[in-house]
């Protein structure tokens, strides 16, 4: 009770406390919120986003949060519901303005009907890795601005200006990215992470090393993957720092196809400082590879 009062008393002058699960969400919030918000990011850049090792600071951050921003589409299902509950912070409970599921503003691909579920996909709500989709990220930025403006209405003009600047920057980058020659390229990926990017840039992912996260592929799967690689000559095998290095090396020895190590999130590599440079890095690595 005392705590709630303190929060109320200071919120008029202090910055908005934003807790973001993933680094790119924190980066986008920074684009819109600038110096009017304080950001805490829970998951480390090269960590599997399905898990966090619970530390006291996470619950403390969630307790103080005015807005909790997360990826959604079940990506954080392993820890976020319990974190929200144990924070006992009413502002970020589901249904409240401070509970921002960024996927609300996303048009998910690979959404499955209940019939398809038996085919085996870990994400029935759709592919959660829209981080690499400029179209969806644009909508997420809109949504963030909306929520920031409603929680902190005094600064809504400021947020809208920053959104306009962000869109401007994105359009300019988009023109540059459009010149990159990715159209028609073929890749093998470790997990199903890059489908949004493939759809928007016109390249193909022709196979996955590990179709289900955490379950080792069957011998038959690897054999047919090697055959497909020999037949279709993909440009490269895409891996991320958290998984796939040994497997890609093995495939490369069998087929001669090189691998490309892509940053998976903001901060994965020193070059990927924010969402824009993350995309720059991924797109130019894909263009060079193969």
């Amino acid at each position, binding site marked *: 009770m005392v705590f709630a009062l303190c929060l109320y008393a200071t919120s008029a002058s202090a910055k908005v406390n934003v807790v973001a699960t993933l680094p790119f969400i924190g980066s986008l919030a920074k684009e819109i919120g600038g110096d009017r918000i304080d950001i805490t990011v829970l998951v480390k850049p090269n960590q599997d986003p399905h*898990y966090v090792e619970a*530390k*006291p600071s996470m*619950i403390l951050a969630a307790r103080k949060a005015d807005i909790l921003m997360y990826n959604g589409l079940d990506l954080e299902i392993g820890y976020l519901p319990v974190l929200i509950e*144990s924070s006992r912070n009413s502002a970020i409970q589901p249904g409240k303005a401070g509970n921002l599921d960024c996927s609300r503003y996303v048009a998910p691909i690979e959404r499955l009907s209940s019939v398809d579920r038996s085919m*085996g996909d*870990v994400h029935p709500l759709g592919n959660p890795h829209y981080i690499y989709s400029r179209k969806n990220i644009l909508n997420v930025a809109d949504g963030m601005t909306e929520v920031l403006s409603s929680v902190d209405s005094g600064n809504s003009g400021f947020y809208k200006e920053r959104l306009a600047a962000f869109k401007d920057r994105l359009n300019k980058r988009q023109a540059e990215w459009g010149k990159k020659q990715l159209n028609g390229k073929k890749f093998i990926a470790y997990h199903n992470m890059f489908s949004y990017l493939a759809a928007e840039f016109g390249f193909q992912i022709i196979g996955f090393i590990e179709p*289900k996260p955490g*379950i080792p592929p069957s011998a038959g799967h690897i054999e047919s993957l090697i055959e497909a690689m020999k037949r279709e000559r993909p440009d490269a095998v895409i891996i991320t720092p958290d998984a796939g290095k040994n497997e890609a090396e093995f495939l490369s020895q069998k087929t001669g196809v090189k691998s490309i190590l892509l940053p998976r999130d903001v901060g994965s590599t020193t070059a990927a400082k924010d969402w824009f440079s993350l995309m720059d890095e991924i797109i130019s690595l894909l263009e060079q590879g193969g």
Partner: protein
Amino acid sequence: MEALNFLIYPFLGCLLLIAIHAYFGIHILERGIIFLDLSMAQFIALGISLSFYMGHEGSGKYLYAIAFAVVGAAILSLSRQISKFVNIEAFIGVFYIFSLASSILILDRTPHGVDDLKAILNGNILFITQGELLKMLVLYSSIGLVHTIFRKRFFALSFEGSGGYFWEFLFFLSFAFVLVSSVSIAGVLQVFTFLVIPALIGRLYTRNPFKVLLIGWAVGLMTTVFGLTLSFKMDLPTAPLIVASLSMVFFILLIIKALRTR
């Protein structure tokens, strides 16, 4: 003040966990089946994998968990008979790897990844909620009550090997029920620690089960308070810090004991 406010649930959770696990630890150590908990937890996880395969997710998975707890208890109640033929700890190890491998094979044919299973086995004490605490309190005190009333029978089982299949089954079944709840709340690492280390520390000083329990509770509790506080002050992951602290206390007391008896 704020630290106290938000560490109070994890603290109460640890309190309940130590209370029941240190007790079971005495039995487990006496019987020499240390990895029983990992094995049993994994077997229950196999049940949950099967619930995914059958499409009975949601609340249905608890029925599978309970069913597998019962079956697992029934199998392990034969441990005295099994130990006539093979090393019982090795049998429990095989039981563990069989359960783990089968879970992976079953999950391969479901829409789930191993992530879902890991989430079950890697509960986190920091995220414990009020509802979970209440459930733990009810479950542990009912099991504790049964074990207090029939303590002579249960201790006769572990210490003298006498008692018969029914009591043996009741022992393993109550242990399985404790595990279903504790592993999903605190994770296998912490559960194993609370099970084995307090009882081990107690056994450094006495063989009287009641005194072992008192020493185990006291040391376990003090170390947990220390671990929780340090985890808060230094912002380190809570469960591993409690586990490391309790292990360190055990090592130190062991060395002191060894030097004294030389």
